[in-house]
């Protein structure tokens, strides 16, 4: 009987585990072969890919990348594809795992008629050299690791570097006129790196406009933030610079509203998303973030993207999602520029020298393939992100 129970228990555990990762590794191909016109002889699809976590802890990011890239590819196919050839988007689930991401990269490098990848999330730092060896362009919409583009000359980053984003956050604090900073950073590589970077930036700038009055390293998640807030309060912080994810920013903000109602909370671009607004509710009103993307913009391209994204996912696209959309735009434009040639080196060169104007603004790259981005301070007002 004991044995049976143990077996049953083991079985249950296995079933629940399997259930959690039920979406297998098979690519969800979305070949929209509705292409028309162009060269009537060659209808072989041009393949591009998006890879991101569709399941697991970071699934919200991957799902956003996936939807955004589909919208961009569908738009191109509706306009006749590239040179009459349809575009086929290969969509892979990285499952929030580095190993899985690497396996996907190996699979992709074996594809015929394949010209580039948007994404990777957990495996960004593991796949760069592989793609570079195979001369496949990789455009990341989210990588925050300093060394990402150093992996090889096929690695491009449309996401702002940590310094650029931090400058954007500092500008937010300055715009709000609250420059006594309390830095709250996550105790992982990214959080510590961001904080070190901030200190370096302030030294370079001669530390005139801002002053760090307190820095709090946090474990993140479901911790009791009151102790941290007490420290910030005692140090006289006016602005909290949040180097942490929205699942820490929201609980922090809720608590801060009681004890420090006047605290200006500036978070990173990762908080520019719908869940942050929904869960935060009235408490995140007034939170600031630098963003290259504003869903409220009147620009027709932005409107098209936001409406299409809302129709497909019922959500407002996040800043990172918009970057993925533009990354796919940059990739397809570069492929299209080399009429019929489809020479990999030429495509890489076109990406490097692009003058693409996307929903996140100019997408040009610096010499070392990092995007040069322009941030605008945004603020939460009436449940949405608007220009400050």
């Amino acid at each position, binding site marked *: 009987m004991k044995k049976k129970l143990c077996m049953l228990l083991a079985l249950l555990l296995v079933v629940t585990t399997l259930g959690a990762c039920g979406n297998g590794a098979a690519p969800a191909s979305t070949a929209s072969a509705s292409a028309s016109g162009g060269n009537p002889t060659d209808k072989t699809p041009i393949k591009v890919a998006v890879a991101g976590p569709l399941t697991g802890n970071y699934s919200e990011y991957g799902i956003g990348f996936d939807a955004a890239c589909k919208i961009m590819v569908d738009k191109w196919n509706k306009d006749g594809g590239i040179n009459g050839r349809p575009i086929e988007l290969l969509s892979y689930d990285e499952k929030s795992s580095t190993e899985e991401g690497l396996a996907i990269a190996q699979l992709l490098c074996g594809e015929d008629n394949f010209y580039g990848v948007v994404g990777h999330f957990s495996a960004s730092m593991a796949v760069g050299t592989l793609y570079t060896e195979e001369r496949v362009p990789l455009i990341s919409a989210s990588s925050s690791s300093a060394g990402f583009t150093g992996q090889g000359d096929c690695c491009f980053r449309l996401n702002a570097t940590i310094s650029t984003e931090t400058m954007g956050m500092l500008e937010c604090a300055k715009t709000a006129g609250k420059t006594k900073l309390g830095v709250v950073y996550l105790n992982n590589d990214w959080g510590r790196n961001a904080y070190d970077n901030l200190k370096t930036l302030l030294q370079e700038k001669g530390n005139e406009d801002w002053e760090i009055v307190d820095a709090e390293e946090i474990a993140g998640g479901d911790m*009791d933030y009151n102790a941290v807030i007490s420290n910030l309060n005692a140090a006289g912080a006016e602005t909290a610079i949040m180097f942490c994810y929205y699942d820490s920013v929201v609980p922090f903000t809720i608590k801060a509203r009681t004890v420090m109602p006047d605290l200006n909370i500036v978070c990173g671009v990762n908080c520019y998303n719908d869940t942050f607004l929904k869960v935060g509710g009235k408490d995140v009103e007034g939170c600031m973030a630098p963003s290259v993307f504003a869903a409220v913009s009147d620009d027709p391209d932005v409107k098209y993207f936001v409406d299409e994204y809302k129709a497909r996912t019922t959500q407002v696209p996040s800043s990172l999602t918009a970057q993925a959309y533009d990354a796919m735009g940059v990739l397809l434009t570069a492929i299209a520029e080399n009429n019929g040639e489809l020479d990999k080196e030429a495509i890489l060169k076109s990406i490097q020298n692009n003058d693409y104007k996307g929903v996140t603004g100019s997408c040009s790259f610096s010499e070392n393939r990092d995007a040069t981005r322009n941030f605008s301070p945004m603020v939460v007002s009436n449940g949405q992100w608007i220009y400050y």
Partner: protein
Amino acid sequence: MFVEQLINGLAIGTIYALVAVGYSLVFGILRLVNFTHSSVYTLGAFMVYVGVEYLHLNIFLAILFSLVTTGFAGVMIDKMGLEPLRKKGASKISAMITTIGLSYIIINCLNIAFGSQIIRFPDLFNYGTFKLLGATIAWQQVIIGAVALILLVALSIFINRTRIGLAMRAVQQEPSAAAINGINVNMIISLTFFLGAASAAIAGTLIASYNQYLRSSMGDIVGLKAFAAAVLGGIGSLPGSVLGGLIIGVSESMAVYKLGGSYIDMVAFSLLFLVLLIRPYGILGRKGSTKV
């Protein structure tokens, strides 16, 4: 500043204490670490949420609803998962593994039903702040501490001053003698699980209201720390659990105050480690002690 951090620590400490008592109650009676306790704590908070959001109850009825359903869930964990094992004379380790498995099942069910994201929870005690010795203190902290403390005192009176409590202590000390003196041992075990689950439900509700959100993973860390608190104070000892909870709560806020926020999770277990080196049975625990 010190006062502020002390209050922060005491507020969270009473919650740890309330959860720790549940570990102690069940351990005292079955000599079993009940790992479903942290998921029952989470379940309790979700049941209040269900009461408010789906059954449209007012908050007090929702809490009552949660107490009854969560308490009942605690009893069912024993009746369906553990009592059959006891009857077959299974080892303690099988029972313990069963509780770990059941805990995963409960959390998985919550995940399927509500997702793993943050869900907003009504703030029950937001009455702003007040000043004490120059420190800014939120009323909600005081109220949470007071509610938890009142419950702990009530529980202690129940166990030490009523004959049902007497029966509970009897079962803990000598189950066979208790049975032979007419105590329905299974009923007492069920009652213990009910009390443990209901106090966890209240603790979960207090925390959810304190943080103003809940999510299915909210019991992971609190459950472990409360368990540490129970062992620190001497598992099986009710005053020990309370003391352990308060010590861990205060030392955590002091760690944030003096060392920084990333030390918060380390403190509880470092403390546990040190105390057990000096007092292997916990601060108020005794060797072979069976006293609640």
